[in-house]
């Protein structure tokens, strides 16, 4: 399975390196890349591997946009219902659409939102046409993207695309894939930050030697390297054990919590290692930190995911 992750990560990285087409029209670019077909033909475990590979590549490239959301929807067989307009997903389970609010990443790019509605007994997946929503406010995020905040003060017309047991399963699968691939993006961002910082420390000369010759800086980078290595290992294990459904969500909560904390800490340290260049907006590390902040908060942050893990922990000696 790790071969699939590596293979797809390499391919996705090459593709994202020339990301003009992606930036202009993410969904069309997704189709052109062949991910839709790959996801349609893949087993659930392979879909997880592909989703995490794409996430790693996106993180490393600091790419934004709803690519993993679209990939997850493809995996759940929902893209057909959404058509090529699908661009944003709110995977939260809510009891109804008129007593809550929607918070949707990349909402400015969307024509429809895919939402899960209902309760444990009756859940469905539905499309909301953005044009019928009233009062949506776009909240600028640190990485330059927008989070759509939609107060749902009145009933919103929905177009159900999946209902009953299928919807429940698809919603859960969707949520799992988003947690997985967002964690992968965080790890990709961390890896990029480490790479950039290492290059800087290896070339910047102060007091007659490169910064990388100072042990205190070396050990700081080592600690970040350890955190990212652990996160990457956990990601690969979660993908390998994807078929064990009973423990998947708990492991994903652990993964997202760890990846969020590691990414924020690594990128925060990266700013420090780069000195004033790190603090400058034009520097190469500041975008890493901004991406880490946004992704760490998405689909559950470090503390909330840890809390969810605590509610349903894994028996390590089971």
């Amino acid at each position: 399975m790790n071969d699939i992750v590596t293979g797809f990560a390499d391919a996705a990285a090459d593709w994202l390196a020339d990301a003009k087409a992606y930036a202009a029209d993410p969904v069309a670019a997704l189709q052109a890349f062949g991910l839709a077909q790959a996801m349609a033909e893949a087993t659930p475990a392979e879909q997880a591997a592909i989703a995490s590979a794409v996430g790693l590549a996106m993180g490393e490239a600091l790419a934004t946009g709803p690519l993993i959301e679209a990939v997850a929807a493809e995996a759940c067989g929902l893209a057909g219902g959404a058509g090529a307009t699908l661009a944003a997903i709110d995977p939260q389970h809510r009891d109804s659409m008129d007593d809550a609010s929607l918070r949707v990443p990349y909402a400015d790019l969307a024509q429809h939102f895919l939402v899960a509605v209902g309760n444990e007994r009756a859940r469905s997946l539905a499309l909301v046409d953005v044009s019928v929503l009233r009062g949506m406010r776009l909240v600028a995020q640190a990485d330059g993207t927008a989070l759509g905040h939609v107060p749902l003060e009145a009933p919103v017309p929905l177009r159900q695309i999946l209902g009953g047991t299928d919807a429940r399963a698809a919603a859960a699968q969707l949520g799992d894939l988003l947690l997985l691939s967002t964690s992968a993006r965080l790890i990709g961002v961390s890896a990029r930050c480490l790479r950039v910082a290492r290059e800087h420390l290896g070339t910047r000369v102060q007091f007659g030697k490169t910064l990388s010759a100072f042990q205190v800086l070396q050990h700081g980078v080592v600690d970040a390297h350890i955190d990212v290595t652990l996160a990457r290992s956990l990601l690969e294990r979660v993908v390998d054990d994807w078929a064990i459904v009973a423990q998947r969500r708990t492991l994903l909560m652990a993964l997202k919590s760890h990846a969020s904390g590691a990414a924020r800490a690594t990128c925060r340290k990266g700013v420090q290692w780069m000195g004033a260049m790190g603090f400058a907006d034009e520097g190469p590390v500041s975008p890493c930190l901004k991406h880490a902040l946004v992704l760490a908060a998405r689909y559950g942050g470090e503390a909330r995911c840890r809390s969810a893990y605590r509610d349903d922990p894994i028996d390590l000696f089971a």
Partner: protein
Amino acid sequence: MLFSRDTDEGRAFRAEVRNWLAQALPAAYRHHLQVLDPAILRDWQRRLHARGWVAPAWPKAFGGMGGSIDEQLILLEELARAGAPPVLPTGVNLLGHALMAFGTPEQQARHLPAILDGSVFWAQGYSEPGAGSDLASLRTAAIEDGDHYVVTGEKIWSSFAHFCDWIFALVRTDPDAKPRHAGISMLLIDLRSPGITVRPIRTIAGRDEFASVVFDRVRVPRENLLGAKNDGWRVANHVLVFERLANGSPRHALSMWRKVRDVAERTGVASEHAFADRLAALEIRLLAHLALYRHAVERVKHEASIDDIAPVMKIVSTELLQALTELLLDAGEPHGAPMAFDLPGRSLELAGEYLLARRTTIFGGSNEIQRNIIANRVLGFPRVY
């Protein structure tokens, strides 16, 4: 076990081990402190040896279990699960591998069986009063005199040396060698030899765990040279690889996690939000460590190097263990910091566990040295001290 799916053969082996442990492991030996009475260590090793499981990684040709990687892991996991005492690592996990790689047939025939059955316990003689992390600066001299080496000097921090029978020691056989590590050899020395004085050193935990070993013109037969003369550094590095692997195992952290959970439930601290949150954070890190360990095992299965992650595992496992002992103290806090804490069927030494765990980041190449290794060999940074 997490991240490990047993094959049909693995499941059968796990059941066999679990059943055997239920019968063969005395209750008094379970979930004890990390250091035990030598009599318990010898007795437990004898039982394991009789079952053929004392050296899972050794080839059958040398009397080991010759187990597959999966079988070795299953055995390790089940021993941890049952709270079994450790096998003294210096013989089985360290010297044994060096003897198999560098020993003469005579040395192998003489020493390997006694390592396996626990009739001879080995100490490790590396550090000296003036040579710790900078091991290449060691000064204990071995001068050739006919069929013998005459050894003079002092080894220190030798774990369990006060109840061991032999010691494998790094000695200087060429004082003028450049670089310094080129003049070092490995000698196998009987601790009952005339001229040897062993002085136990009490640890911070109040136990005689390590010792100073003084050599005053000790005559060691030339046949006790392990490997070639002046090639001891290579032998030592071979040993260090196994030492770091053993130190990187999640076994001790797993065992400590269970103790923390049990004590916290007993005292009621487990239900406190702040405590539960800290424990969850460490559990998540332990999960990640288990994932990394499994990753390392997969690499070993495919005969790929784990040089880049062995020091990472050593750092993570030992610092995780120490962090868990911090929680252990908090879990028992309603009772102060007791040396003894009673649980159903067993007794824990809370303060003792905390104090003992201090050693793990110091021994086997301190964690600062491990970080230097990662910085230099993995990240490509300049070598600095």
